[in-house]
């Protein structure tokens, strides 16, 4: 066990808890920076995809895991970010401008959807955001002049400081930089009054209100921030897929984002990243294993969606804290060794408010 001896309030405000954290996260960043130098193009590309989904996951986590509002329309925000970025790039606007603009514009869209849905929660909010996703999807299909409709839209190659962001490696580094930036923003958010207000809204609206928290303002803000971050992911997603088609941003993608948040573990940024790794790499893992599985299981149609469904159900039943909860338990086991108590591994029975349908 590590016992922290704190000597100033400043210490409690740091983004990291102790020197060990700083060392390990630093090492992780270093490893991530080295990966493209030692790994093949395919793996680098896949990891780039993981980062992009992790960014979107962090965005959705702030909304679902911390504010307790559900959204089944986040694919639409990803799409808005992707199209904004690509359309502006095609107009000759530099990438370093289009990227933040995509985020900001998506944030505005998020505020616009957040505002009228303020009184909703649970199922009703899920349906409202689902409808929003459907509407935006239709706009992508029909607004030929801007999106190119079903013909699609070839995404121009962006330049950062005169260097073209091309291929898997380019997308990898840009996505990694944005992911680190978004995590930094989120950590800041969560240790300042906005983040606390969000958690307060999640746990008890009525007492949040009597603490002076303007529910309308903070719910809208949470929607805006969440959408904005997802918009950033969208801008990168455009470069990841290189060719935008409206059917990429359907409800299945939104459900994938929700899976990231739930499987990763509600109410933890680390969970969003672990969830993204899971959601992106499971299909690849299945593809690689396909031929070596016995009895031809690998060639069964619908293997991937059914595995996703199974995992989601198992997680909700047995591990409501998700992969992050599993990680924390494992860590606790090693820290407490050999004094692990029976109760420390017991199934979590407490659910975050957002899971209860009100």
């Amino acid at each position, binding site marked *: 066990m590590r016992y922290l001896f704190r000597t100033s309030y400043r210490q409690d405000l740091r983004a990291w808890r102790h020197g060990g954290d700083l060392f390990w996260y630093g090492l992780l960043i270093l490893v991530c920076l080295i990966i493209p130098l030692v790994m093949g193009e395919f793996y680098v590309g896949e990891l780039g995809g993981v980062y992009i989904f992790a960014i979107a996951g962090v965005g959705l986590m702030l909304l679902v895991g911390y504010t307790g509002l559900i959204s089944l329309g986040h694919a639409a925000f990803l799409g808005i970010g992707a199209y904004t970025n690509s359309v502006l790039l095609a107009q000759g606007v530099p990438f370093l401008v289009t990227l933040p603009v995509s985020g900001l514009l998506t944030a505005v869209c998020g505020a616009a959807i957040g505002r009228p849905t303020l009184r909703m929660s649970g199922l009703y909010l899920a349906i409202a955001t689902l409808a929003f996703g459907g509407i935006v999807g239709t706009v992508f299909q029909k607004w030929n002049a801007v999106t190119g409709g079903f013909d699609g839209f070839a995404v121009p190659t962006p330049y950062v400081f005169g260097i073209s962001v091309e291929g898997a490696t380019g997308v990898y580094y840009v996505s990694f930089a944005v992911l680190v930036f978004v995590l930094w923003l989120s950590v*800041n958010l969560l*240790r300042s*009054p906005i983040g606390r207000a969000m958690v307060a809204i999640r*746990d008890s609206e009525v007492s949040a*209100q009597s603490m*002076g928290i303007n*529910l309308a303002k903070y719910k809208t*803000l949470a929607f805006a921030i969440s959408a904005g971050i997802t918009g950033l992911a969208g801008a990168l997603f455009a470069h990841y897929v290189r060719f935008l088609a409206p059917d990429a941003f359907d409800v299945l993608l939104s459900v994938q984002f929700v899976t990231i948040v739930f499987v990763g573990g509600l109410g933890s940024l680390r969970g969003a990243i672990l969830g993204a790794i899971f959601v992106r790499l499971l299909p690849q893992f299945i593809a690689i294993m396909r031929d070596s599985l016995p009895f031809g299981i690998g060639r069964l149609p619908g293997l991937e969606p059914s595995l996703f469904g199974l995992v989601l159900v198992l997680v909700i039943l047995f591990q409501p804290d998700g992969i992050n909860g599993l990680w924390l338990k494992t860590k606790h086991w090693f820290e407490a060794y050999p004094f692990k108590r029976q109760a420390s591994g017991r199934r979590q029975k407490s659910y975050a408010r957002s899971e209860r349908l009100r």
Partner: protein
Amino acid sequence: MTALFEARDIAVRFGGIRAVDSVSFSVQQGEVFSIIGPNGAGKTTIFNLISRIYDTTEGQLLFDGKDITRAPPYTIANLGIARTFQNIELFANATLLQNLLIGRHCHSTVGYLSQLCFLPSTRRAEIRHREKVEEVIAFLDLQRYRDSLIANLPYGVRKVVELGRALCIEPKLLLLDEPSSGLNVDETEGMGFWIEDIKKDLGITVIMVEHDMSLVSQVSDRVMALNYGKVLAMGSPREVQTHPEVVRAYIGDVTEAEA
């Protein structure tokens, strides 16, 4: 003495039921004012009217010389009114420290951008809030629970935490909704001492809804008894407790019982 809070003929109807029916009272600066009455008398409804969760159908609410009858609920804390809830409305998945810091929300003035980037101004503000929170923690003797999750704390401690969260608002007026409900005799006595300390040391005016008459007599300066949304009696704890209307509301008509 000046009235810190005044309710003038307030009434609220839910459908055909008049939950509160033209109730008037004023609370003086620095006093502990208790509201008693049988279940369903409208005590908590009055609290919800003051903290603006419900809208009054008639009447006026005045606080500190300002009319708050139609003030939005989230502005009440900024004006200096804090409350606790009968069934504890803490933020269960956060630590005690975070709960108390949320109580500081109405005092936060740092801009959004500064918070997102955690600029030095945010850091300074956070340290200021933390110092204030630590004062409350020390005042209520909660040091050993500082980093515990609320979900893991015993009921009695949560009750005190909720009181602490309300104190973090630095209110002028504190509304306590059944501070002793669910507490054992010892804890109730402790709660009585906290309320006396809040009145004497912090100079905060308290309005309290309470069933435990020993606690009411211990701490209250004045008591108001309600039944069916109407005021039965108002005065010192002793006067109200022996008031024939109050006795009848609680235990029925004595003459009827004898007959």
